[in-house]
């Protein structure tokens, strides 16, 4: 009964006009206030967030305090964090909300409680939105599906960190397009943003890759093969791979440096001296190739590794501005989480 192949030269299925089943349709996000991926936001929603960020930043703190007065927000953190956790917390409190922090090292998560059960528990305790930082890519989608609460993705594995992309955008606009908060497909036309380093493991890179090309920016990805596989260039339009740091710098109005994520290297061996020689942003390199570029870094910075101390503290660096912008952006995003869809 075993058949022999009748065809020596198989034609591609496409030539037989085979129509395969359709791809999946996404039910996400379930909640209008959720922010799971930077790619979920329309340009109008981005503009709205930027304009609310500016408004809330300048609002009278006593009035601001009443916007989410006594509303309950849970921060659920499976990974350590300084900037993101603190700025989300400060943002929520600035709007008057009550926040509670659950972190994996001081909760029943240590005892083996699942993400689903932890989420349902927080909901039962009255949480109206959950801000989630998780070491597994995709965890916010699971949490939203199980709790049906608005979920704010504060970083999921190697996947996305959408509020970081928004605060990066706000920082870029301040320097390149001062006064602009309403964005469109041309806002960043003519701007080249180079993202440098450990792109493979970076959720900041992915969120920026999902966001910036939609505003007209050219995104150049720069790094060694181990940290920047060729496939990265295929994830969407407007992405260019450039292995040579100097020529990437030469084209750039914005340089975004990334930390090498030792915790996610998974056995990958990397020659750090060689890496520094090729990809460390030093004062002379910056002066020679991009003397006017804005230097960004999502933090945490490892001084002497991806950037020298001189560059981190130098006049082109906007690293601390990024941190400050984080609070304003997160106020807008937290407000949106609890008021989108007319729930407030």
């Amino acid at each position, binding site marked *: *009964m*075993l058949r022999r*192949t009748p065809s020596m030269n198989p034609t591609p299925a496409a030539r037989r006009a*085979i129509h*395969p089943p359709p791809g999946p349709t996404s039910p996400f996000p379930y909640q209008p206030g959720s922010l799971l991926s930077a790619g979920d936001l329309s340009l109008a929603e981005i503009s709205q967030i930027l304009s609310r960020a500016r408004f809330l930043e300048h609002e009278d703190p006593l009035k601001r305090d009443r916007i989410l007065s006594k509303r309950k927000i849970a921060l659920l953190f499976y990974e350590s964090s300084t900037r993101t956790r603190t700025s989300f917390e400060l943002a929520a409190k600035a709007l008057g909300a009550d926040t509670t922090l659950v972190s994996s090292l001081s909760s029943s998560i240590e005892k083996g409680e699942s993400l689903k059960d932890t989420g349902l528990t927080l909901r039962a305790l009255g949480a109206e939105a959950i801000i989630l930082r998780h070491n*597994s890519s*995709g965890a916010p989608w*699971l949490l939203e599906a199980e709790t049906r609460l608005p979920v704010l993705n504060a970083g999921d594995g190697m996947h996305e960190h959408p509020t970081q992309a928004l605060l990066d955008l706000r920082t870029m606009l301040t320097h390149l397009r001062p006064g602009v908060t309403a964005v469109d497909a041309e806002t960043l036309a003519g701007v080249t943003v180079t993202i440098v380093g450990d792109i493979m493991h970076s959720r900041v890179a992915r969120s920026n890759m999902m966001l910036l090309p939609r505003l007209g920016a050219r995104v150049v990805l720069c790094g060694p093969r181990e940290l920047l596989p060729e496939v990265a260039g*295929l994830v969407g339009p407007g992405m260019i791979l450039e292995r040579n740091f100097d020529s990437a710098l030469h084209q750039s109005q914005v340089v975004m440096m990334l930390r090498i994520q030792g915790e996610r290297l998974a056995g990958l061996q990397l020659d750090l001296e060689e890496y520094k020689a090729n990809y460390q942003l030093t004062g002379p390199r910056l002066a020679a190739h991009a003397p006017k570029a804005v230097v960004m870094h999502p933090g945490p910075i490892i001084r002497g590794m991806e950037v020298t101390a001189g560059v981190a503290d130098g006049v082109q660096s906007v690293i601390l501005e990024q941190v400050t912008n984080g609070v304003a952006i997160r106020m807008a995003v937290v407000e949106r989480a609890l008021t989108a869809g007319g729930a407030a």
Partner: protein
Amino acid sequence: MTALVIKGGHLLDPAAGVDGLKDILLKDGHVVEIAGAGKLKQANGAEVVDATGLTVAPGLVDIHVHLREPGQGYKETIATGTAAAAAGGFTTVAAMPNTRPVNDSPEITRWMQSSERGACVRVFPIAAATRGSKGEAINDYAALKAAGAVAVSDDGLPILKDGTMREALAAAARVGLTVIQHAEDTRMTAGGSMNAGPVAFKLGLRGMPAEAETSIVERDIRLVSELREARPHLHVAHTSTAGAMAAVRQARRNGLRVTCEVAPHHFLLTDEHVGLYNTHAKMCPPLRSAADRDAMIEAILDGVVDAIATDHAPHAVHEKEVEFENAPNGITGLETALGLSLYWLHKEWKMPMGRVLSLLSAQPAALLGLKGRGTLAVGSFADVVIFDPKAEWSYRARETKSKSRNTPFDGWTMLGRVRWTISEGRVVYSNPA
């Protein structure tokens, strides 16, 4: 045992070359007589199944299922897994050995076939190729075969080492067993949870490269070629990459005894179907690129593929309701294989129905040497599926007979509604219109 007559149906038995209106008499678990409509000679007193307007075909044969017993009865039992098989039209299933403990002994092989397990269709165990499926020491294949094993495999894991695989192929050939390989170079897939490529990169998931499958299939074929005097039979489980399929094609041209199966999800879905971390689209091998999927379709239509096998791999709901990386591999498949194959291969891609049915019965039965299965010739086992070939219906995972419902095909349109499944003369599933 009472006799049973199937009257008025359209008998489609590709192995026997029958395609027409026939009445069939089943008695004592076997096919006793086949005659033109109303012409049976020995039908007096027999119970009648009216198959008017329906297709009558040999019961389906799935050579790749996980029934989870012994050890993981919360996912599936032999009783519930075979109930799902019967609902899907299958009358024969071959059960993989990655149970707890691993089925690497004649005792467990016999235990699985005991009537106490409550199987409603025939279960043939596939025994572990190596002790504990650890890929080191070869098991006693003669003893396993004597206990009822129909093949050896470490499925779920590859037989990775060249020396071990060579030894397994040679030892299996000596006793006339097939070695079924789960082709995955686990040195290349560690930490991966989906197919490597742009989709995995975008989702921030570590990838399992197609090369990890292709390279093992190529290595195995090389070993079969080196051992060709002994005529070993290599069967490639759940083939999913264009490269692996090309290697199988070439091996066949070279006259080697190399066969392969493809699962419905690998000829229908791609890594895009992972969507936003749908754990019901996570299995091993993973859903591949569109080019790989198209190569599976092509190979099925060309006749390179020997069998459609489901890799039915039930998991409890709570096990799949977790982060994608942490979810176990596998989906259920026994209830959807016929409906999906008829809808897509036959209706959409114009493969003759007899050839589709052959891939689901005659060919898999032949490749594992299951005598009297996969055909309804007189003297064969009375294993029959009777289905409405025109009925289109929507699969509902919540109505499954399996203990688990981890399927990406919930809500998909199926063609061909099973009305009766008969295993060795007993009606084990009925769903009259």
